[in-house]
Structure formats: structure tokens, C-alpha cells
């Protein structure tokens, strides 16, 4: 959606103000710290996790086992499946079991090749952003199932990571009632740090707008510290480790 | 080796039996405690209330009292830790700062000295009672005296140890806090006493007479016959009875 010229002009005005203010604001900090401001990056001897932690790694089977245990402990479901065909069958059986009528999925090659549409013939399928005219947030909001392939997963915390792009909507892992996440086993790491370091290496220009770590179903303990599952995000989350 | 006793004002005035237990127990190991009578209070009430000028005056007295000691031992983790605040008190006075640092390096809480310095864990005591232990906040959290009292109690024959629920929670004393915020302090000590009573212990033991005075006062107010004593007293009584 194109913004009006007037609005753009207003934003430009704000930016000019902000840039001017930034100089004084930052100089003020240097002043309070009682030293001149330096443009050079300071040496950061404590970057990231403690050294001993960076050597820690589980073998793949243990990784799978720990991931599943953690994910289940957080109230989610997790399966290990041998092939993508098994994943298709699993999702189809759950769709039938829960009578899923609307399904939305990311436009990812693994899902395009999976043939879910044929496996769940009774459901109405949407493929994220496959039509520029569609109101995609509404499609995701009405969906019973959202299906995504994870970009990464970390066993130690039981987390999956999904990155946004043209073909990967943030809404798909957020708005549907049930979330299905396929994790190709080679993307399952031990520690969070093994995932996070990629974003440092990629650099600012190459990061997507949304990087989301998901570690179970949406929950709250705000009422009498009593755990409630499914507050705003999906209340039912399946992670399927494939391979 | 000159080992000096820093009695602390509370034990001096109200609980001299604690000092006596320390003196007689350590004498068994050939440690003759010195007692510089010029000593007074560590200054914590003034320091914690923000009266640092006044705290410096009392701190100077303590520093002078123990200047020639090799080891300074006290029956209170809190008063010992107060000595750790002296360098901060004198940070702008290089001469006093150096003295403060020297005192800090040689100041020990009683069980710290017994276990870490003398290497004693079994004093040969016999104390056939059910005992629970309240670890005082400053001694355990700030000074780091956690294992020493437990190790010493483990070796006491006949002693049945019952862990105190929520042992690490503050008893609510907090010096002037117990006067200024008396209702909050009262709620805290009530809770602490309830936990003590839950254990059904005959004896509550600790390493800080201020906290123990607080809890004992509350137990007595409720007419509960729990005996409250410093670990030094328990050990000394156990040695006499063995």
C-alpha cells in the first residue's frame, strides 16, 4: 500500500528531527560516562555464552529425545517420523481427527512437494501469499491448521525457529488454532547459540523482518498462577521431527 | 598467633554466654582468645540507616581495637560482614582504607574460623536433642557461611537435625527495620516462628544473636518452649556433656 506523499513528508520531517536529536542524546551519554565519545567499537571480551557452553553438543538421537521431552513438558506434542510421507500421513490423520476445514500453509518447497492437499481432500487449503489480492491475515485467522517447516530447532530449550519471508507468513505460525511444525532432522541443533550465531553472521541486511522462536503452545499463568493453554496463539502445537 | 574475640555489642550486653562458649571451646584447642576491651559495636545500625559519619566513628574504634590481631573472630556473620563494608566507608581516606582492608582480611565468623582455619569439624560434642537451624541472611548469603555450621552439627553425637522449611527466608529483624517497619517485620517473624514450630524441634540454633533474639522473642511471646541458642553454645554444652 502506497503511503501518501504528505505522510512520507511527515515521516521525513520526523527523521530529520530524530537524527538531530540523536547527536545530543548520545553525546549526553558520553558526557555522563565522563569520557569522550568513541566511534570505534569497544573490545567486547564477554561476547556470547561462557566458553565451556560453546563446546556442549548432544549426539543426534539424544537431541531428538531431549527436544521431544522439552516440547512435551511445555504442553506441546512431538513425534519423530522417518520420512516426509509419514509426516503427510500424520498431519492428514490429525486433520481428520479434529475435522480441520481450513488449512493454511507456508509456500515452502518441502510443503509444495508434500501433496497435503490430496491427503486432506475435505479441507479448504490456502498457500501463503500465493495471490497478491488475497487478505492473508484473515485466511490465517480463520484456519484450523497452520503448517510450517522450521528453519531451525534447538533441543536444549525445545524450541523451533521460523523466519518470515514473502513465502513464509508470520501469521501462519500464530493465528490458526492448531500449529504443525515439520523439523527436518538436520536443522535440529543442541543449543540456542548455534542458531543465533547465524543471525550475527548473516548481518543486518540479510535478516528477515520476523524471527520467531516457538517453544510450545501459547500459555498464561496470569490467573492464580494456574496454567492455561492457548491464550492468543495456537493452543495445540505439533512438532514433527523428520529423518 | 594472636586471636582476638570481637564479641559484638549484642552478645556482650545480652548474651555473654555465647562469648563464654567460644572462649572455653577454643581454649580446648590451645587458642587463647584475647579480648581488647576498647572494642564496642561494629557500627551497622548507623551504616545501614545511612549515618556513615557516625558509622565511621565506631568503625575506627573497631579497627584500632584489632590492629595488632592476627585473627579476629566474632559470633555474628552480620557483624563480621559489616567489617567488609569498612573499605567502602573509608574509600576516600587512604590511611584508614588500608587498615580497613587489613581488618577485613583477618575477620572471621566463629564457625568459619573453626572449620576453615583450625580445620575442626568434630568438637567431640554430645547433644541428644532435635535441632533445627536458621541460616542468618548476612552470614550465609553475603559472607558465604553455608556449609560450616552443618558440617559441625553433623558430627555432634545424638543430635537429630531437622531442616527448617524456607530456612533461607529472612526472620524479619533487619536492625532498625524491625522498629521502623514493625508490622512488616512482625509478619516476617511470625512466619519464621511458624516454620520453626512445624519442625517440632526442641532447639533452634543459629549464628547470629540478633536474628535469634528476634525469633526467640516471638516464640516466647507465643509461649512456645523452643530453646534458642547460638551454635557455639550448643557445641560447648555438648562438649561439657560428652
Amino acid at each position, binding site marked *: 500500500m502506497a503511503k501518501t506523499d504528505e505522510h512520507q513528508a511527515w515521516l521525513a520531517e520526523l527523521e530529520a528531527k530524530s537524527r538531530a536529536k540523536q547527536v545530543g542524546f548520545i553525546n549526553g551519554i558520553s558526557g555522563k560516562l565522563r569520557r569522550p565519545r568513541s566511534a570505534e567499537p569497544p573490545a567486547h571480551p564477554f561476547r556470547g555464552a561462557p566458553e565451556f557452553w560453546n563446546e556442549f553438543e548432544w549426539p543426534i538421537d539424544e537431541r531428538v529425545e531431549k527436544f521431544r521431552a522439552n516440547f512435551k513438558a511445555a504442553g506441546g506434542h512431538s513425534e519423530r517420523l522417518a520420512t516426509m510421507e509419514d509426516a503427510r500421513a500424520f498431519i492428514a490423520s490429525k486433520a481428520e481427527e479434529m475435522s480441520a476445514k481450513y488449512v493454511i500453509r507456508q509456500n515452502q518447497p518441502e510443503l509444495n512437494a508434500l501433496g497435503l492437499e490430496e491427503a486432506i481432500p475435505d479441507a479448504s487449503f490456502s498457500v501463503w501469499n500465493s495471490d497478491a489480492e488475497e487478505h492473508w491475515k484473515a485466511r490465517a485467522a480463520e484456519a484450523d491448521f497452520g503448517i510450517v517447516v522450521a528453519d531451525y530447532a534447538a533441543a536444549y*530449550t525445545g524450541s523451533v525457529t521460523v523466519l518470515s519471508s514473502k513465502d513464509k507468513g508470520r501469521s501462519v505460525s500464530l493465528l490458526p488454532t492448531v500449529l504443525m511444525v515439520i523439523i527436518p532432522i538436520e536443522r535440529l541443533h543442541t543449543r540456542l547459540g548455534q542458531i543465533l550465531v547465524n543471525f550475527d553472521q548473516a548481518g543486518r541486511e540479510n535478516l528477515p523482518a520476523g524471527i520467531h522462536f516457538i517453544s510450545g503452545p501459547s500459555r498464561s499463568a496470569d490467573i492464580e498462577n494456574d496454567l492455561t493453554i492457548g491464550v492468543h496463539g495456537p493452543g495445540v502445537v505439533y512438532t514433527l521431527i523428520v529423518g | 598467633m594472636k586471636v582476638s574475640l570481637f564479641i559484638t555489642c549484642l552478645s556482650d550486653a545480652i548474651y555473654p554466654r555465647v562469648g563464654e562458649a567460644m572462649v572455653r571451646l577454643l581454649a580446648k*584447642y590451645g587458642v587463647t582468645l584475647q579480648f581488647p576491651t576498647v572494642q564496642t559495636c561494629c557500627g551497622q545500625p548507623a551504616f545501614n540507616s545511612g549515618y556513615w559519619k557516625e558509622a565511621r566513628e565506631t568503625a575506627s574504634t573497631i579497627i584500632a581495637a584489632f590492629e595488632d590481631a592476627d585473627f579476629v573472630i566474632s559470633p555474628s556473620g552480620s557483624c563480621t560482614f559489616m567489617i567488609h563494608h569498612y573499605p567502602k566507608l573509608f574509600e576516600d581516606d587512604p590511611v584508614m582504607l588500608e587498615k580497613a582492608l587489613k581488618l577485613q582480611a583477618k575477620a572471621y565468623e566463629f564457625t568459619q574460623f573453626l572449620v576453615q582455619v583450625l580445620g575442626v569439624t568434630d568438637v567431640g560434642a554430645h547433644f541428644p536433642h532435635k535441632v533445627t537451624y536458621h541460616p542468618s541472611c548476612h552470614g550465609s548469603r553475603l559472607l558465604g557461611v553455608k556449609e560450616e555450621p552443618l558440617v559441625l552439627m553433623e558430627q555432634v553425637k545424638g543430635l537429630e537435625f531437622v531442616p527448617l522449611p524456607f530456612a533461607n527466608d529472612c526472620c524479619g529483624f533487619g536492625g532498625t527495620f524491625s522498629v521502623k517497619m514493625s508490622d512488616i517485620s512482625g509478619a516476617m517473624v511470625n512466619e519464621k516462628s511458624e516454620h520453626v514450630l512445624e519442625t517440632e524441634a526442641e532447639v533452634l540454633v543459629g549464628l547470629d544473636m540478633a536474628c535469634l533474639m528476634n525469633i526467640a522473642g516471638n516464640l516466647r511471646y507465643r509461649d512456645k518452649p523452643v530453646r534458642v541458642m547460638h551454635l557455639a553454645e550448643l557445641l560447648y554444652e555438648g562438649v561439657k556433656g560428652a
Partner: protein
Amino acid sequence: MSVTGTQAGGATVKERAGLALNNDFLRKAVKFTTERLRNGKINAAEDHGNWDEWRERGRQIRLHTIAHLDYYLNLFADNARANGVNVHFADTAAEAVQISLDIAKRAEAKTVVKSKSMVTEELHLNHALEGIGVEAIETDLGEYIIQLAGETPSHIIIPAIHKNRYQIAELLSADAGETLAPDTQVLAGFVRRKLREKFLEADIGMTGCNFAIAETGSMVLFENEGNARMVTTVPKTQITLMGMERIIPSWSDLEVMATLLPRSATGQKLTVYMSGITGPRREVDADGPEEMHIIIVDNGRSLQLGDPEFQELLNCIRCGACLNACPVYRHIGGHAYGGTYSGPIGAVLTPALKKNVAEWDDIANASSLCGACYEACPVKIPLHEMLIYLRRRKLEAGRGDKMEALGMKGFAAVMSNAKRYGAVLKIGQLGQKLVVRDGGIRLKIGPLKGWNTYRVTPSLPKESFRQQWKTMEEEIRHGLQDMDPAMKDRMEQIVKDRAAGKGGHGHHG
């Protein structure tokens, strides 16, 4: 909201605490929940292992970032701008509010959906938005509940910690226009449905910021419900308010914060959602905000910079562990503190941010200085010491209590001189005879009133230790034992090591 909450129910922390102490339900509710959170944290830390190494690492990262905040904040602002974010700087709360209102007006916003943000509480932003006819809706379940009640959060992590399910059912039933059962699932289900509509129709999504990554200009949010993801995904405009100190250098540093924050806050290995947002939606994306603003707020934070006693306050990662560990907080709850932030961190942060130490002093007094906050803190902020510095600064500002000052002068006069001390002791030993009964003092008058409402004060024994010393010393000199040579060697070695600058023992740290 009609009540700003700051002075509700009493002018002093003592009065407010008194109200809380007499509210049995409140005390039980707060105790129950903080106990669960505290145990959860302890278990999570033990389960993870090497907790002190992680704390130390977290502390070092925070110390480093704050020590170079000019560099990192500038880097963050430049990078965020390069990502397409409209970055703003606000020195004061009023400025931050003004910028937010300008954006809302330009967007012709009717509704703002908010995820939990302590900064916006600090700014009383909801109130300001309502003033220009914009509905501000808190979407965190607990925040939604207390917004309905017209209250402010009483805990950083569990804002409605002071309410039970029956009170909540009543509030939500009124909101729903039908009777809802006091059942957690039913109540949460209602809020889900109700807020779903609000998310989809809102013009602006507003968030706080847990961490801001300098090197990539990204902002990171930790949450469990999914509402922060909603407000950063669905509305067209996103406004993020962040304290200027929320910065960390890199994503790698985020691993340390992600290890410390959830474990310390709720005992979780990671919150259900951890989202890193790098700019508004890309041109080709089909969701995410089209326009994104980040407002960097000072509002008193920079007062701590360069202050050796308080700079570490800026290390705080807002986990709430100090509240759960604090025995005072557990008895009086958050509202008794009278500021946006409660518990030990609030007792220090509130006066520090406002620079009106004198006015807030009675909060600094509401602590037994037990150090549980320091022990629980994932970045090791010495809050128990800062409380003492606050007390001292009040006196330095000439705002002390005159009677107390007189008392302390007397204390110093007596306690800096053993002769005077001995004389006072003797007076006490004699004088107490009037009030001692059965070895104790039960009088509830004067300074003893508060103490003796809960306790019996012990009497002074006939002789103090110093009065007994001469006799005792003679007795032990008679029966003196030889010291075990091994013991003697150890002691000599310790003294030698000390002289050589080695060793030392038992320090907090």
C-alpha cells in the same frame, strides 16, 4: 484508568503495607504465587547448572554494554533506521508520550493494542491515549484484567498477582455482559475471543522491548501468550517503546539473556515465544507492520550513568526474580511500593529514576537488607547495598529525621568509646529493673511498642561479657592446652599468604 496507582490507599509505604498486611487474601495470593515462581527459578537454575558462571557472564555483558552505551545505542539507532524503522529519542516521559500521540493522530487510530510494557506504565501512556480519544487495550491476560479493574500492575511478570479467580470472573463477566464461571479456561477463553477481534481491527500495535540488538538494529520480545506477536504482526503500524538501556551488542549475547531471563522470571527454559523483529515488513511480505516506530526513552535512566553506586541498576533485565525472593514483597504485595516498579528493584529504581530520593525514602526503609534480591538477581545487581546508599543520600540531602539523627549521634558517641559504652551498659542493667518481669520486657510503650507487639524483649543479664572477662581469662590461662602443631602451621600459613596478598576468604560475590 482513574487510578494511577501510585499513592492508592495510603500516603506512605507503611500505611499501604498496613492495608496489605490486613488483607489476608492478598497476602496469601501473593505468597502462593511468588513461592511457586521462586521455586521454579531455583529448580530451573539448578537444572541448567553452572548458574553462577551464567550470572557472571550476564553481568559482564550488561556492564560492558552500559559502559559503552553511547557507542551501542548509536549503533542500534543507525541500524534500526537502516532497517526502515522510524527511530525517536525522548528525554522525558512527556516527550515519549507526545511522540506516541503524534503517531497515533497521524495514523487516525481508533484503537491501540498493547503487549506488556513496563515503560508505557512508567509513562502512563494509556491515559494519554484515552485523552485524545484512542482506545488503548492491554492484551496480556493479566494486564487486561487489571486494566478492567482500573488498577496498575503489582508485579512485573504477573501483573494481576493480587486478584483471585472469583474477582477476575466478576470483572470479565461485566465485560462480557454475561456470567462467566470462575474457571481459568473459561475466563482465558473469553479473553482470547474478545481480543482476537481487537487485534484484527486495531490500527496500532504497541510493545515494550526486552532487548535491542545493536549490531543489527533488531528488537527482541519474550512472552508466553502470543499477544506480543499479535501486536507486531497484525496492525499496520507498530510502536515500540524501549528504555535506552535495553541494548545488547549481538544475537550471540542474546543466548545469555535468553538463558537468564525466562529461568529467573518463571522457571521456564525459554518463554513460549521469543521474537526478534528487524524492521517493518519487507515489500514482498504479506504480513507484519507497514510502518514501525521505536521510541528510545531516557526518563531518568541516564541519571544513573557515571554514578558508581547506581550505574549497575541499568543492568536490570526486568525478570522479577527479586520480587519473588523478597520476604517484604511477599508480605505486602506490589501496590504498597507506590510506584510503577515494585519489590526490591522498585524500591531502588523508583527514587533513582525520579531523582527525588528524599521523597521516596520510606520505600528504601521497607527492607530488612537480607540480600535475597541480590542472590536471586540474574545479573547480580547489589540492590541491598543500593538501598543503604539511598538512605545515606537522603541524609546528605538534609532530609533526615531529626530525632533519628540525634539518636545516631548518641549511638556514635557511646559506641566509639568503650568507657562510655560500659557506663551506658551499667545504667541499663540497673534501669531495666523497673520493667523486667520474669527475665523479659513486655511493655508496649515508646520505642518498644512495635517490637513488643510481636515479641518479648530479653533483659540484660547481671554481668556483661566484658564484666565477666577477667575471671574467665584467668580460668582459661590455668588449664591451657598446647596447640596441635598442624593447626599452628595452618594458621601461620594463612597469615603468611595474607601478607603476600594471596587468599582471603568468604566474601560475597
